[in-house]
Structure formats: C-alpha cells, structure tokens
C-alpha cells in the first residue's frame, strides 16, 4: 500500500523550484476571481479572469525571469495571459472540452484581466472546470469562479484541494 502511494507522488517542479528563488511575496493577495458568463446577447460563454497586478507581477518574474514587468511590458502581459489561458479549461457533461479562444487582456487599476470565450452549446447542463493558474506556482493561491447563467450564480472554488470542479448549470425557462 505504502509503495503504491509513494509511487504516485508527483512534484510540481516547474513552479515551486522557481518560487524558492523569490523573496516572500510583499503583501500579495494570491487570490483571483473569474466570471464565466453565458452571454445571451452574443451566444458565447465569456471567461473573464481578474488577477491582482501585484500577484501577476510576482508570477511573471517567477515564471519568465526577473526582467518580466507586468505594468511596463506588453510582452510580459501577453506571456501571463497565455499562461492563464493554458491553465483554464471547461468541459461539458459529455466530457468534451469547450474550445476557448483567447480574446485578450487589459490592466484596469489594481487588476489585470484576461479574456477568453467559446460558443455556448445549446444543451449544456453542467460544466467541469479546471483552473490551475498560479496554483502550480503558489499552493496557497485561491481561484474563485462564478458561473453566471440566466441571472443565477454557481460558484467553484479552486483552493489547494482538487483540480476539477463540476458545477450544475441553472436551467433557463423551458
């Protein structure tokens, strides 16, 4: 039994090795909020990730090196945006991935937003979400996701435990 368990340990080498070279985060929040909106005007599922600039700044330095500069460099922002995009996935109840397209990113005050979208299938009843962004870097990163459909919100919390969260979608009027 023990051997089996040990055999399955996996180290998150890429992020945490780099983390050890960082000084302790100065007043980092290590919290993000994502809104997944079923937009009836566009027929799309819109994914809007909101990170604190401060977190993103430390993350890009850890991942892409000390020269990375989230406020000063569009390249750094693009890198961060692609990094987030790769670590967020959605699957329908059939287990098939919903193909998200990266729309872009922007800084707004204290926040860095990353946008993606996918066409909304008609018959979606549940969503399985994966949100690993910054969690591979900082194990205490907390990502909160609100799924908004027809005025109802269902939440998924990505914090330490568990990689996937399935949310049952509110069904609109028949």
């Amino acid at each position: 039994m023990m051997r089996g368990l040990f055999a399955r340990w996996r180290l998150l080498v890429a992020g945490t090795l780099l983390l050890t070279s960082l000084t302790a985060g100065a007043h980092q929040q290590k919290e993000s909020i994502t809104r997944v909106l079923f937009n009836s005007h566009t027929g799309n599922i819109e994914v809007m990730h909101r990170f604190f600039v401060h977190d993103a700044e430390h993350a890009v330095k850890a991942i892409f090196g000390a020269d990375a500069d989230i406020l000063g460099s569009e390249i750094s922002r693009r890198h961060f945006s692609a990094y987030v995009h790769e670590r967020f996935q959605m699957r329908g109840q059939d287990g098939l991935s919903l193909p998200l397209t990266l729309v872009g990113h922007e800084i707004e005050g204290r926040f860095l937003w990353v946008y993606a979208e996918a066409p909304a299938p008609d018959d979606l009843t549940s969503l399985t979400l994966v949100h690993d962004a910054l969690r591979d870097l900082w194990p205490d990163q907390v990502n909160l996701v609100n799924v908004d459909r027809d005025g109802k919100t269902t939440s998924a919390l990505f914090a330490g435990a568990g990689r996937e969260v399935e949310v049952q979608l509110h069904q609109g009027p028949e």
Partner: protein
Amino acid sequence: MSKLILCLLVLLSGSAASAATEQTKGSFKDTFRQLDEDLPSANAYRTAGGEPGHAYWQQKVDYDIDVTLDEDTRRLTGSVAIDYTNNSPDTLRFLWLQLDQNRFRSDSLAERSAAFADPSVRGVPAKDMEGNAPPAISLAELRRRQFMDDNELGYEIGTVTDSRGRTLRHKIVGTLMRIDLAEPLRQGRSIGFNLDFAFNIVEEDAVSARSGYEHFPEDARDGGNVIFLIAQWFPRLAAYTDYEGWTNKEFLGRGEFTLEFGDYTVDITVPADHIVSSTGVLKNPEAVLTREQRSRLEQAKNAEQPVFIVTAEEALANEAEGASGTKTWRFEATNVRDFAWASSRKFIWDAQGYRQGGDVQPLVMAMSFYPKEGEPLWSKYSTAAVIHTMRVYSRFSFDYPYPTAQSVNGPVGGMEYPMITFNGPRTDEQDDGTRTYSLAEKRFLVGVVIHEIGHIYFPMTVNSDERQWTWMDEGLNSFLDSMAGLEWDPDIPWKVRPADVVQYMKSEHQVPIMTQSDSVLQLGPNAYAKPTVALTILRETILGRELFDFAFKEYARRWRFKRPTPADFFRTMEEATGVDLDWFWRGWFYTTDHVDLSLDRIWKLRLDTEDPDIDFDRRRQEEAAKPIHPSARANSAEGRRTWVELKPGIRDFYDENDEYTVTNKERNEYKQFLADLEDWERVALERAVQEDSHYYVLEFSNLGGLVMPILLELEFADGSSERYDIPAEIWRRNHRQVKKLLVLDRELGSVIIDPHWETADADVENNHYPRRIVPSRIEVYKRAEREGPEFRDIMQDIKTELEECEPGDTGDGSTPASATEAECVRPQ
C-alpha cells in the same frame, strides 16, 4: 446517556445562537430588526452607546527582558521579568501566556489539524488527490517540512519563579501556558514573576511565520549574512478581558492576536556589527552607535528629507567584513501592546524627524532599515511613506502616539507591531550590477508601508482582537490606507471600488464578515476588501463625509489605548451620527447577502379632476389611443366596409353620443361632490388639478437580499436629469419588493438605479428602465480592441512619406477655413 447529553448540548447551543424571537408565520424578514438583541448587553464596562463605561478596566503588564541573538545557530535565548497588574474586579488564581513559537512544533494543534492541502492555513500546503490524478506536494511544502524536521522548534521554557524566588507551577497547553499563582491575585494587586526561555528561529521563507530569519549566502562575508525579524518571540501575557475572560484561544497561524498594554525595557545582545531596529526608543546610543551615527541622528530630527545614519557604502563594508564580539542595545517602550525588533549587519538606516505638533508626541522619528537588495527603492520611498501615513491617519483618528515609526525590509511581506513594521518589496539586480525596480514594485512598497504603519493605529493603539475579528483592524486599516494612498498620488489605483467586491459577494463561497478569523474562507475579500467597501459606502453614500468622519474619529478617540469590540464600533457610529445603521451592520457584516436592486416597472399616472367634462374626454382619448383589433385593422386595410358604413340608416343616438358623453346628471354629481368636500379638501384638489403634475409609481425588487438605499438618476423627456435618493428604510416592511410614488413637474423619459456604481450592485442591467443592454467586459474590450496603439501596422506605416500642407487657393486670396480645404503636396 451520552447521546442524551449530546442532544441537550446541541439544543442549548442552538437556542443560544438564535434570537429569542422568531417569525413563525409567513415569510416576513425584518432586515431592520435592531441589533441590540444580538449584541452583548451594555454594562458598566461598555456603554450602550459604544463607549468605555464608567467601570472600564484593562490589565497592565510590564516586561523587563534580556535577550541574546546567536547568529550562527539562529537562536534566541532570554529571560523575562514580568510585572502583572490586575485591574479587573475579579480575583485571578492563574495567568495565561501566549507561546506563539509553539505553533511550529510538529505536534501543535495547527500542524496536526491542518487538512491536506488546506488553503486556509497560512503557509505552503500541498495539492490533494482528486479523480484519477495522483496527489502532489509542492517543493515549498517539502522545504517547510524538512526545515521543521531538521530544527527543534517551539519554546524551551525554564523554571517560573515569583519575585520572592518561589517556583510557580506552570502547564503548557499548545501555544498557551498557564501559570498557577501562589496566592490569588486580587483587584488592584500586582505580581512579579520571572522565567527563562529560548527557541530556534524559523527561516521565514521556509515556514511563513510573520517573522524569522533570511540568509544571504552570496554575500562576501564568510558564511553569508542574515536578516533577523524577531516578533512573537517572548512569552506574552494573554489578554484578560471583560467580554471574554482570558483570550486563551490556540494560535493556529491565521488569526493574529491581542495583548495587554504595558511598559517594556529590553536589552538585546547581538553581534557587535549588527544594527538593531526595535519597538521603543534606544536608551544607550553611546554604547552601540558611533559618534558620527549619533550626530547624524541628531541632524535627522530637523531634516527636510531622510538622513542616512548608516549609508549604503557603510552597510556594504559592514556586511563584507564582519566583526567579533557582541553589543547590547537597550530599548524602552511605554504603553505598547507588544514588542518586536530586527537585527542585521546588512542594514542601511535612514531617518527623518516628523514634527506633527500637538501635545501627545510633537516629534516622531520616522526611520527605515533595509539591505542593498532594497535599493534604490527604499531610500527614496520608505521613510517618506511612513511620514505620509501619519499625516493622513492622524487626521482621521488621533496624533501618532509613539516616538518612533519604523519600516524594516526583510523576508516578511508585510506585518505590523508597535512602532515597527516589516515590509517585503525588493529590487532586481541586473547584469551590469545595478539594481532596478518596476512601477508595480514601487507601488507595492508605498502601499505596504502605508498599510503596515497604519496598523500602528489599528490595532496596535485601538486594541481590537484580530484572532476574533480580523476585519476590525484589517478592514478599518484597508479603508484608511486607500485614503492615504489617494493622497499620495491619485493616479495610482489604490482604492477598492464597490464594484470590485461584486463577484465575491455574489459567490457561494463566503462567510459573513462577523466570523472568527480562523474559520474565514477567503480572508482577503472577507476581512479587507468587503469591509473597506462597506465603510466607503457609509462615508460617501449613506452618511456623507462630515457625519462619517466625525463618528469614525470619535470611535478612534474613545478606544485609543483601549480594547473595543465590534459592538463598540457599531454603537459608536450610530450614536455619533444619529443614524440608525442596524440594517447596514446586519446586512453587510452579519449575512452573506449581496446587493442587486432591480427597477422592474414604472406606471405613469394622472390625477382625475372629478370634473366630468375633463375626465370623460381623457378616458375617450385613452380609449382612442389603444390599438384597434388586428382583424378590424386588416379589414380596413383590405378596404372592406363595415355594415354600419354600408347601411347608414341603421345609425342611431348612440352612434352620435359615445359612452364618454357627459350629461348634466354627471355635472350635477360633480357639483354635489365639490359641495360635500371640506374646505381643505377642496383647496388640495383644486391645487393638484391646477398643477397637473406627473405621477409615477416605480416598482423595485431586491434580488440580492441586502437592503440598500435606492439611488436614482431621473432622466426627463426634455433632456434634463435629477438625482433622487430613496433611503434604505423603504425596504423596512417588505425587503423583497417595494413601490415608490414620485410626483414630478416634468415628463419622465428613463430611470437608472445607482448610475455611478456606488453600492456594489451586482447586476447593472436591471438597474435601467427601460432596460438597456449593458455590454459585458469582453464585449467592451473587443469593441475598443483594434483601436489601441498596439494595433497600428507600424512596419507598413513607417514607409509613409512626409507630406507638406500648403494653404489651398480659395480664389479670393483668403486662407482656407479648415484643414480639409488645405492642399497637401507630396514632395518630389
């Protein structure tokens, strides 16, 4: 039997948690129910108005400590003489002390109870198993575990003796220690006792402890150098309070602490080449500082900008060479609730006197200590931010009460203690050896210094208990730090806007703000952002600045150097403003409701004159304005003639006199109606008829649950607009749906709730009547997307030749009126 007891306990705790009154019929919810039945009863110690009562008391604890830092073994060894004064009316038979270092023992409650991958544990947990994926553990967590395995952590406590040398029995319970007194300690009496202690200091980057050491192995000195940030480092008396008794709740790492005020004399022995920053005032500068350093300190008192006490060059030489032997630094601090310090040979030290005036503390020495790894950022901004914080916070509360205010750079991201704060921002070394920092890092430094220095006011002076109510210092302080930030540079985005907390407040993963700190799910939005927004709304929207600022300052004045609870804050804010805010505290602090008000419908009304010659014709016009039956319309379009049209002979009296025809019967009734009116009724009717105002009934629903004022922007048909605020009290008798009559002198075109996003309303679309499609963030982004400078094809555009624009020939010799008339000529 045991089952029965358990059931009984559950029942008892259930009834204790719920109010005595209960709505047992219907679904009415009293969102305005007074809080007093949920708040602790007022008594002689705390008044019903939120003020310290006539019999208010708090304990006093004085410390005399000798401590030695061993740099090589990263170990502290000390002895402490404690003088405890019992000002409570109670007789104490034992005392409780906090042993925070025991939190790092492998058998601590914090360690043993930490769930695998529990994100609420401050530090570095691991990833859990899920589905078919293997479990994973981060290298950071491995480092933490290895450090804890390799080092004996927690306190070593020696014998406890009283001032007469008698051994006092003590019992260690996790992070607490009970000392049993030889004789009961009665009111007004003091007891002195001594104990020795020692512990191995944790490496902050490995363990995350709000303090600890950081090793710099690359430094020129053999073995490198170390920065020590030393806090929660001596056995500290737990607070004994009128509202909780002993605050002897285990330290789990999250909820911080509250302590007693007292006076400290601390002798700190460190390597001779170290510079020490500490709570208090240095009492033996001649023994530890050079003549030059003392002279610079003197000069700094009146300086207009920070003066280096230890320059960068001196610090660099210091950290390269090292020296042997030790020096003892003596610090004294009066009326502080804790004591922390920092020590390193790497420290650059700058200082500037801040002359705040007043009687309390006319001169404060603002000082910063940092290694070269913080330069050139720290010398430029740290001490400046310290002074700026005091300027702004004092205006909102009281004069800074202590002789020093310090900011120290080390491995801790941000943490506060009396007179001293630990702040983390650093700079990056480039290949050419210079050090640079990003704009973001600059903002972080200024922001974190303001925040941590702000904590010296809340909770280091206004002594709230962070282990119970984190929001009382983090929330109030975050609210104030954004004020101070805006006054530093308004272009920097400091402010937490109400809209920023909407997604958190909508989410299913949250707990009320009034939740014990260790049980809070997401501390950032719960204890910092949401209370900040609540206070901002109170100040800017509900009370207005004058009322809010007066009450907030009164709260600070009342509880300066005392121990407030949430009830004292809530009650003071109500008592000093004269505004019932119980609905606000209830909604924002005691529930997880969010704000979502919707304007569902507007009815347009017109007053009947009762005069049949006017009213009957109005009815006729209303009827005529209605669409005719679709089939009749289609018939008419086909040119189909009606029977009545085809057979005019069939017409009679009623074809000439419709149902709105007025007869003298109605006119007589009208006359009788007027005659029957009282004089005042007739006057009122006549005036209303004459004014012929526009009457509208607006129907609102409260979808989020939280009752809030309804801030309306009325847009009139003539293009003008007007603000009309409906107080939250409109929801008093129905918190789900209400109607409001507006009597206006102009015709209404449209209405918006909360047009400036002041109230954290979650759904903006239903704030508009008629409904307006509010584009999502992505839609807005995509519209603006291709217009930004980054979308120019500069590779192509750069080939463009420069054109010269000559005034065109207008025929009459005059200059063309606009550039479009000019003729641009491409040079050959």
